[in-house]
């Protein structure tokens, strides 16, 4: 069609949602729709990335995220190599920079990095030619988790703009919270965060989010509740007194959920501490879309792999 090529997603890497636009997020989510259709087929495989190599470089254990990325690569017929901290020279003290050089010489097309330190994905992206997907770097960002959250909400609600989204828990250490704040804010939702003051970092208001310390107040009229996982080690660090008190103040139960809108969705990046973050009847109830998030995660990651191995031009030619 006349008018040439309209570039809709042009990034070498996906390091976070802070640096991409609402239009790009929308395009990513649009691309995930046909990907989800592929997952629903009996033969869940297309030949798109045949001959392409995807390296899963995981410095932290994450069965869920890694499994989701592996499946996404498989559905697109890419070859995957797994390098994890237990099997690679990571354990021998090889630096990320050295590992990056090795990956460069392997000729990988995409590297998926999970790392305990913020900024690691950016460091890697600056070192390798391959596209880098940040699968979580320290407390910085976890963009694919936020994308699947956005996809899930958009699929359920049709539109994200105008919704009220509440994120509850350990905001301080949560990369999911940061990516969700950027993502939902960019898409026009009102974002609230809630947690104990010791787990809410300063300056959050500057991102556009509203901060609450009282869960009941925060829940009023929200459309989406994202509950974050609380880690017991934060108790040892003196950031909160214990899981029992945490659950009493910040656990989501039936009475509290009633404060939200009737059709509110309950989400969780998993794995859920039942009875702590979310009461069992809520986790298994109709409001929870936690299982759906898992399926959508694969679709979103397929879309991302596809777009990062070439981009996404509106491109109609003589083919």
């Amino acid at each position, binding site marked *: 069609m*006349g008018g*040439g*090529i309209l*570039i*809709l997603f*042009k990034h070498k890497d996906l390091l976070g949602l802070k640096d991409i636009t609402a239009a790009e997020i929308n395009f990513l989510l*649009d*691309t995930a*729709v*046909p*990907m989800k*259709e*592929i997952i629903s*087929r*009996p*033969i869940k*495989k*297309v*030949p*798109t*990335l045949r*001959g*392409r190599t995807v390296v899963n470089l995981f410095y932290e254990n994450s069965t869920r995220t890694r499994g989701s990325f592996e499946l996404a690569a498989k559905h*697109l017929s890419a070859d995957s190599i797994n390098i994890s901290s237990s099997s690679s020279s990571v354990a021998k003290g090889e630096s990320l920079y050295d590992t990056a050089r090795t990956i460069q010489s392997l000729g990988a097309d995409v590297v998926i990095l999970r790392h305990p330190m913020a900024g690691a994905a950016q460091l890697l992206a600056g070192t390798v030619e391959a596209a880098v997907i940040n699968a979580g770097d320290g407390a910085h960002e976890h963009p694919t988790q936020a994308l699947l959250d956005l996809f899930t909400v958009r699929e359920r609600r049709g539109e994200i703009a105008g919704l009220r989204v509440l994120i509850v828990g350990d905001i301080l250490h949560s990369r999911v919270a940061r990516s969700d704040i950027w993502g939902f804010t960019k898409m026009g939702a009102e974002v609230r965060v809630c947690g104990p003051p010791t787990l809410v970092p300063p300056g959050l208001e500057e991102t556009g989010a509203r901060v609450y310390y009282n869960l009941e107040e925060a829940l009023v009229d929200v459309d989406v509740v994202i509950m974050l996982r609380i880690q017991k080690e934060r108790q040892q660090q003196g950031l909160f007194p214990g899981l029992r008190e945490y659950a009493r103040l910040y656990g989501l139960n039936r009475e509290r959920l009633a404060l939200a809108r009737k059709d509110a969705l309950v989400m969780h990046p998993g794995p859920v501490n039942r009875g702590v973050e979310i009461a069992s009847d809520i986790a298994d109830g109709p409001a929870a879309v936690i299982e759906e998030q898992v399926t959508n995660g694969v679709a979103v990651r397929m*879309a991302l792999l*596809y*777009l990062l*191995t*070439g*981009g*996404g*031009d*509106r*491109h*109609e030619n*003589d*083919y």
Partner: protein
Amino acid sequence: MPNLKEKARIIDKDGIRRALTRIAHEIIERNKGTEDLVLIGIRRRGVPLARRLAEKIRAIEGSRVPVGILDITLYRDDLSTLSHQPVVRQTEVNFPIKGKKVILVDDVLFTGRTIRAALDAVIDLGRPRNIQLAALIDRGHRELPIRADYVGKNVPTSRRESVAVHLEETDGVDEVVIMEKT
């Protein structure tokens, strides 16, 4: 992108209508009716063509033939050579393919690569009894051993030329024009 200039209008609205009517008759004749027949249009302009064929078949035979939509983007063999990949859209084939006679429908048959991708895509959806191909225009220059079972019009062209099919549903007008690089 090179600039293209319209060189000649080779088929008009009536021409397209007549060609589709003839193809519809040929499909019914060749398949001895419409039993187990399904139509699958290849995005984009194969889709309205498939719908029109289904409509004509219904008018002739009185039976409804299901129409599906195929997006072949993820099956293209040139993805690794393109600097940017095309937009993926959804495949919508909401009926089983297994054991069916599938009529693939596209606007222009050219190198054959689109059809090669479409064959893979269809087979990934299930195992059909057979696959047949209907194209409004066959402009030659095949790069693969693929031929159409039903052709609206053979249009010999040079490589410098391109054939543009415009349809009401997508372009607001029914016509086929030959474009030339300027």
